[in-house]
């Protein structure tokens, strides 16, 4: 790929960003489609609670592929990837801590609901 880019005339001669080879793009696309099919297929069998982690795992593989190849992260300045990961870490923090709290106080909500089970008018 480098040669292709370098043929254009210019004085600052190294390319500005990595150019994605077409086979990689197609390969990633095909994998994504297969994985999409797999997520749907996974719901045909009932694995109980296990369905959710499977679906999430597949989604995460897909997301990683998109980020690494379609979004060039693999060839990019590491800081960009770091920013992306940081975002995910903070999202996880936000969700997990809030979740922890809601689960812990749920009994006091349920107790009230059971005691006042005339549901509010809609």
């Amino acid at each position, binding site marked *: 790929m480098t040669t292709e880019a370098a043929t254009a005339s210019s004085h600052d001669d190294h390319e500005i960003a990595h150019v994605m080879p077409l086979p990689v793009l197609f390969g990633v696309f095909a994998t994504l489609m297969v994985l999409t099919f797999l997520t749907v297929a996974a719901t045909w069998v009932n694995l109980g609670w296990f369905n959710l982690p499977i679906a999430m795992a597949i989604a995460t593989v897909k997301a990683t592929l998109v980020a690494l190849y379609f979004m060039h992260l693999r060839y990019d300045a590491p800081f960009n990837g770091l920013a992306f990961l940081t975002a995910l870490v903070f999202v996880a923090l936000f969700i997990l801590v809030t979740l922890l709290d809601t689960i812990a*106080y749920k009994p*006091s*909500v349920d*107790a*009230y*609901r059971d005691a006042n089970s005339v549901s509010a*008018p809609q």
Partner: protein
Amino acid sequence: MVDFAVGTLSDLSRMALLAQSDGGSFWLPPPESVSSWAVDNVFYYILYLSYFFFALIFAVLVLFVVRYRRRPGVEAVKTATHSTLLEAVWSLIPLGLVIIMFYAGFVGYVELRSPPEQAYEILVTARKWSWQFTYPDGTMATDLHVPVGEPVRLVMSSEDVIHSLSIPAFRVKMDVVPGRYTRTWFQAKQPGKFDLYCTEYCGTGHSDMLASVVVHQREAFDAWLVEAGDILGNSATPVEAGEKLFRLHGCGSCHSTDGTPRIGPTLKGIFGETHRFSDGSSLAVDENYVRQSINEPGAKIREGYKNQMPTYKGRLSNDEITALIQYLKSLDGG
């Protein structure tokens, strides 16, 4: 200017005196519940640490400013631009101190959040903008009466927005949240009367959402409970009973008795009036209509108002409703 300074100084000294005069310290009101230590001990620990660090910073700052103030011909002296040791010292010392702080606060918190098994349970209902305390025998009151020396557990819920029950003398504070129960507890040390505030902002009447906590000896408490429970019996007239019920059940938070509309229509002088309803019908107000309004408020919605009134079916007996009706009728004269 001098007057002002003198005045301010004397105000400041009054502030200090006033603080002492109620038996509390400059900072905290007197500790009136057995768990007050849970707050006070840590409070003073942090307070003295803060005095220390503030004094330290203040002293160093003044010293440096005086000693090293800029003078002609005197240049700054080059000193080290960093010292890992020094910096480690002044990170690690505070670190140790705050860990103690956290732990002491945690121990206190556990105390404040763990009522003893055998506690006297009172239900608290908060609504804009009044408190209602319901005792195990069904008695209701708008002030919180409790026996001295016994643990009391409050089980609280709100009918509208978030409120918060705060009794500073007992070091008690807990939000009262719609759609769930929240709990708190305390055990009063001695009889007396204390302030109870709503400390979560809840709208117009937030600063009026006050009540008293009255701590009785056990016998006096029992007597109070009997008396408070029998509203019809301990009132001279049905009208007086009706007025008490009106207050206890918080009707006044939506209805005025002086003619001004609020969330609900005023209840002054409604008897004999003809009211129109949102479905277009109309009716002359009589005892049956008022009884229905209280038992099934949604049946007829007064024009211009929303269906916001809760039902009182099961909460008010027939006789109590009769007393309420007498009271409402009495408003006509005034």
